């Protein structure tokens, strides 16, 4: 495999070429993000101010107006969704990575992968059928449930992949100390895989924070802010969707501003969760 001279030079240059290509891949991703964010910002900049954060929505034609209620709604829904999805997803991830007997793990992994491919609107229809219709009302709770279903497979599969990559020697070392299996998982494997798990969670949070389709059938939206978990609730993506497709320039601008805000919120959550999880790890 190792040769000197011309062969080595060729290998060196081909290596360099491939590495440059991979750098271009990364650059392309960032470029796309910059293009999209730039466009969003360009269209929404006139609405990015304090009122937008602290005022409730106003009807079209009235100056000002913000997204306060929808920002709160998005936070509540993301927390609700995460509260349901994190235990399920993480524990399922542990099962898949640490305990899964081939057939059981395959079944669960399959279910998770298929669930990840279900269009979000179908998840909304499902949540509508099992929660909204029986309860006779749209509700924040049903929306949290729908978002959780979208979140679970992403959390479970990324947690599994991350935990699997914790070297076996680490597990064996822990077990050799005589601690029970479950404590080895909780105390050694999960912390070892924590950054990967957090990445998965953040991807899932980002996804559900921006999800519109399932909310149409569950959260419905609210003109009066948060009224209780069993009542309709507004959310940023819902408002973005409706405003973006409306005829009015004013509302379209608000939709772009809200989209930018949503990205910033997700970025904020991402940073906070990462900082905390990194500090805990030490």
């Amino acid at each position: 495999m190792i040769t000197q001279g011309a062969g080595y030079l060729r290998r060196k240059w081909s290596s360099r070429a491939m590495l440059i290509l991979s750098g271009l891949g990364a650059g392309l991703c960032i470029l796309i993000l910059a293009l999209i964010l730039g466009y969003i910002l360009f269209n929404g900049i006139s609405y990015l101010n304090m009122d937008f954060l602290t005022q409730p929505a106003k009807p079209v034609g009235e100056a000002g107006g913000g997204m306060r209620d929808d920002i709160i709604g998005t936070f509540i829904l993301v927390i609700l969704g995460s509260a349901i999805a994190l235990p399920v997803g993480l524990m399922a991830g542990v099962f898949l990575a640490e305990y899964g007997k081939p057939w059981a793990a395959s079944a669960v992994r399959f279910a998770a992968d298929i669930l990840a491919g279900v269009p979000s609107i179908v998840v909304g229809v499902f949540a509508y059928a099992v929660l909204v219709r029986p309860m006779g009302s749209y509700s924040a709770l049903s929306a949290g449930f729908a978002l959780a279903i979208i979140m679970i497979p992403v959390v479970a599969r990324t947690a599994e992949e991350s935990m699997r990559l914790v070297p076996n020697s680490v597990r064996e070392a822990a077990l050799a100390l005589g601690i029970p299996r479950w404590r080895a998982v909780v105390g050694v494997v999960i912390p070892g895989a924590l950054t990967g798990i957090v990445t998965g969670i953040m991807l899932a949070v980002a996804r559900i924070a921006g999800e519109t389709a399932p909310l149409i059938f569950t959260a419905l939206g609210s003109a009066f802010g948060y009224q209780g978990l069993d009542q309709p609730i507004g959310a940023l993506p819902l408002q973005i969707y409706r405003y973006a497709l409306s005829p009015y320039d004013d509302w379209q601008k608000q939709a772009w501003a809200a989209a930018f805000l949503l990205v910033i919120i997700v970025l904020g959550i991402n940073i906070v969760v990462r900082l905390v999880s990194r500090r805990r790890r030490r």
Partner: protein
Amino acid sequence: MQNSKTMQAPSHKRGNSGTSGARRLGDRIFFNATLIFALLIVAILIGLLIVLNMDAMPAINKFGLAFLTDSSWDPVKEVFGALPAIYGTLLSSIIGLVIAVPVSLGAAIFLAELAPRWLSRPGSFLIEMLAAIPSVIIGLWGLFVMVPVIRNPVESWLGSTLGFLPLFQGPPFGVGFLAAGVILAIMIIPIITAVSREVMEAVPDTQREAMLALGATRWEMIQKAVLPYCRSGLTGAIILGLGRALGETMAVTMVIGNSYAITESLFSPGVTIASKIASEFSEASGDVYIGSLVELALVLFVITLLVNIIARLLVWRMTTVKAVIG
């Protein structure tokens, strides 16, 4: 390959020290807890299938298997078939993957292996941010910014240079399979990149050092030591991305042109299952019409299932071949 890593289930019978009773109880509780949560995923999926199946019944009864091979979609006369939607779903997802996989893997390699820490952290952050932009916003951006670029220069150039291929014929509307594939690629790049980067970073440094010590170049080290080590993780990343592509609605609907037809040209407008459901579900009326839209969702389930099986077989083949060769 990875199964060798999972330790035996906690039914191991070796613990016979004094504390083993309590220890085994703790282990059993923990194991059962993970099992219950894991099975919950299966339960949700089954529940979903049952609910969808009930709603789809009127269409299933009316059309039977012909639903899969019919190309018409006429809400007025209530004649529905899924074929163009199946075709469009597969085609747009394939285009999306063909673009997204190399870009994502390249980006992941760069972030995990090459970039210094001060660059790789914010870089990963930014790429994950792409996942947070709502679908409708990406769709509108696609419609107003990306589609004009695709129409001219991309499609007109492809048409004039590769126009002899049926893939690149027909009027360059801008909207169509190609635009849908590109938008899907943009939407799945963050998920594939993030997960791939994560699994690459988890590869122990000893692997890399061993390879470099043998005199390998950086790329050879990545190619021979890093990528094989995390193949299952990379497959998982791609499958997650594919799942997102198959199920994506609003962004695709904005740029695919929504024509219920099967054409081989990538320039022509088409439709996907998810976009069809999202477009028409909220205004649909009548049991057969709604049932047909729900049956489309069931078809998408089956497609996802098949794609998953194929992907798994491919990985399994590759890993066993590798193992045999050596």
